[in-house]
């Protein structure tokens, strides 16, 4: 009997979950607060008071009438009435898929926060053509299965046609075939795997291909006089991609990779691998990391093991948390990074607002990229005026005028790849000189170009 009751209970719970899940499709009502100002001006008031003043002068009684005019001051009363009007304004609904858990959670969370910031700004400024923008956020956990589930939920339940995301190339590659088949635009600020370029017509990104970072890194290594390189790489598609492209370029220029080690994302102790690497006496060590934790920890442990040569890395290795973890060990590390331009007021503004809101910034370029995505989306929505029109949106992106955002001025090529961005060389400064404003590094200039 107890089991019977239990199964009924379970079925009820499930039904209610389903009801919540499948029934929650009501049109959102935008509640607008219209402030009506009522100005009541009370104009000059003349009060005429006649006073009889009896003046007794000896036997004569003279009645003098004195007129006293009391003028009251002008009183202006403004009455503000808040009238709440429930306006049914169909918002633009955009899906967001980022990895809020899993190995990409570091990026996913700041990406979502940046996007939410952008959306709030757009809505506060009156929305797009008067219509607000709504983000529907889903977690793709940085793996293909959850990415497909999140994608299906967004497209089938929420009926969105434009999805911003994902954070991980793996998740992107899982959902991209479906998006391509359904004609849904996927627009990522973070996926860097070169395979994403060929994923389809509807797939865009504002982050640079690994290949670009690789070429710049290889050039920089060679021009700094490095001939024997050791690499240590996190086993994720991004980090592996960066390592592969960099090493290829470096070897093509004539260098030699004398040692290479990899590590799993959950590892914390890299000393074993580093001891082996340092034993090969490389001219420099190249770190490719996906998580800032390992990026910072490796720098620290390299120095603890007595290695004094230069360290090269990409943006993650010189990220804010990585530098905090590495401390003084990171001083002098060279990062080949895509950097927010500190002379760009858009970028500076954005960072200030973000810092004011969340009290930190990290991986500023990725944040800026995620932030820009929303503004590009808004611009294109303004053009098409319909969030269901994925084809129009796609064409808008292909034909986009050079867009100037926080990360620079850029367009998209015919593969949906971003054009117009470039990497710079950054050198990490000593702990005492690091500030949130300079992200802890000096820009040495653009990446060298070698034949």
């Amino acid at each position: 009997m107890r089991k019977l009751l239990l199964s009924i209970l379970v079925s009820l719970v499930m039904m209610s979950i389903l009801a919540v899940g499948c029934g929650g499709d009501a049109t959102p009502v935008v509640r607008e607060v219209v402030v009506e100002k009522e100005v009541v001006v009370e104009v000059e008031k003349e009060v005429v008071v006649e006073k009889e003043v009896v003046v007794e002068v000896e036997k004569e009684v003279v009645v003098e009438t004195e007129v006293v005019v009391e003028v009251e001051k002008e009183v202006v009363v403004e009455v503000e009435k808040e009238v709440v009007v429930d306006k049914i304004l169909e918002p633009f609904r955009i899906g967001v898929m980022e990895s809020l858990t899993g190995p990409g959670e570091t990026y996913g969370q700041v990406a979502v926060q940046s996007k939410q910031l952008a959306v709030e700004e757009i809505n506060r400024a009156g929305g797009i053509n008067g219509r607000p923008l709504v983000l529907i956020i889903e977690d793709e956990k940085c793996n293909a299965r959850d990415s497909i589930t999140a994608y299906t939920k967004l497209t089938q339940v929420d009926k969105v046609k434009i999805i911003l995301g994902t954070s991980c190339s793996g998740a992107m590659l899982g959902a991209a075939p479906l998006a391509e088949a359904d004609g849904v635009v996927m627009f990522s600020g973070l996926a860097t795997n070169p395979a994403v370029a060929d994923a389809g017509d509807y797939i865009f990104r504002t982050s640079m291909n690994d290949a670009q970072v690789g070429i710049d890194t290889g050039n920089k290594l060679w021009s700094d006089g490095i001939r024997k390189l050791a690499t240590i790489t996190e086993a994720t598609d991004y980090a592996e991609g960066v390592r592969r492209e960099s090493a290829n370029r470096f070897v093509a220029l004539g260098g030699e990779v004398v040692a290479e080690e990899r590590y799993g994302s959950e590892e914390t102790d890299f000393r074993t691998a580093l001891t082996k690497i340092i034993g090969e006496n490389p001219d420099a060590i190249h770190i490719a990391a996906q998580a800032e934790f390992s990026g910072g920890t490796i720098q620290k442990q390299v120095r603890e093991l007595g290695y004094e040569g230069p360290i090269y890395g990409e943006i993650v290795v010189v990220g804010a948390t990585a530098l905090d973890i590495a401390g003084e060990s990171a001083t002098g590390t060279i990062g080949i990074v895509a950097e927010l331009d500190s002379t760009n007021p858009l970028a500076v503004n954005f960072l200030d607002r973000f810092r004011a809101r969340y009290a930190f910034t990290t991986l500023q370029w990725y944040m800026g990229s995620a932030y820009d995505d929303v503004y590009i989306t808004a611009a294109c929505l303004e053009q098409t005026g319909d969030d269901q029109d994925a084809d129009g949106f796609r064409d808008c992106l292909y034909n986009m005028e050079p867009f100037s955002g926080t990360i620079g001025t850029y367009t998209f090529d015919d593969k949906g790849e971003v054009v117009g961005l470039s990497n710079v060389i950054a050198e990490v400064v000593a702990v005492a000189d690091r500030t949130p404003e300079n992200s802890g590094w000096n820009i040495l200039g653009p990446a060298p170009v070698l034949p």
Partner: protein
Amino acid sequence: MKILNADKRLPALPRSIIGHPLVSIVVAGVIIYLALLLGQSADQFLQFSINGIVIGAIYAIVAMGFNIVYGTVWFFDLSYGAMATMGAYSVFYFTGRQIQTVGRGEINNLYLDIFMGILIAGVVAWVLYVWIYPELRSRINRITLLAVGALVALATGAYTGLILAHPADLNVFLSPTIGLLVATASGCVLYLGALSGIGSGRGLILFLVLGLPGALALGGYSGWLVADTLSTRLYLSWFMGAILAGASGLAIYRGVYFYLRRQARSPLVMLVGSLGFLLSITAFIAIIFSPDGRPLAQPFGTVPWSLAGAFIKPFQVLIIGIAFAIFGGLYLLLNKTSFGTAVRAIGDDEEVARIVGINTPVVIAVIFFLGATIAGLGGILLGEDIGIRPQMGLLLLLKGWIASVVGGIGNIYGALLGGFVLGMVENYGVWYIPAQWKDAVAFVLLIFFLSFWPRGLLPRR
């Protein structure tokens, strides 16, 4: 090995194992392999050894925490991983502002403070209830006793919450407690000394005249010293972190394991239950502190000492020292005190222990507190050495688990030995293969050991 042999409980290796031909083959193989490594590159060999000893010390610490619990209640408490993470994050909580330069600032969460305060209050209340209450019940009015107990518990909880709410002034807020503790301790010592040394009558007067003011002055001075010195904050935060982790472990035991143990058929129920704690506490830490990795302050700096071509950080020497200190402390506690006897009796047969009058709930609670404290300390040391992240507990836990199984389940000698063996094998093992297979090597070692020495290197009995 001298110390180990002095203990009668330490089991000698069974003759069948020593005489086993496989042992000599394996030992010979290991020696040849190590000699080969040494011949190839001596300073790298030394560096590997240092790496192995340092990480092995941390494994050993976690394994010792594991094993005192396992040897008493016979199940592996997976929530230890979460306790280790918790210890490390407490240190971050207290010292966050000191070390952050570019990244996220200090995180202070009111709800967390309140929650921990309530948790500590509960733990204190329970401890008072099972420990003090039965002793005083007959002498003092029950209502009074309960009221005073509740007041003490509440005060402790509120005090904890207060400390947590002002992490930057940890030393200031902790100083009265430390002063009080020092005063009480020195007072006790003086009192005992005076009584035993000079005889009761005059000794007491002497104590009252000289000892008491002295003790009070000492307490006050140490309290002032702590409050005035900023650099003590880091070490105080270790202390607080370990205590918080221990109290959480005790709360989990009392809140859940206590009931689970009453109805469980097999250790698997407990194992799965503690797995649930590991999952949820890790997730909560990630929610509160964000899933990113975080730095901890670097005690003694990062400048390594050079040692014949190899390098070691001063802090790493401290880690090794702490591992042996914990071992020594546990050795004394388990072998030289009546408490240790009680623990062993419970480990042998809880039913019988209860019948002969051992207060089993209290002893087990202390064991859980101790185990979780040690786990928290392990997490703190790992965090100080490397860095912290919410998921660090799982891997640390697995390694501690392996170390305790390899060393010998249920005793601290095995845990110490197993930790170092695991650390060394992990390091030497990947000399010729890519270092990414380190974890796989650890598990292969485990499977190998379990297949041929199913009870570990130093079995309990």
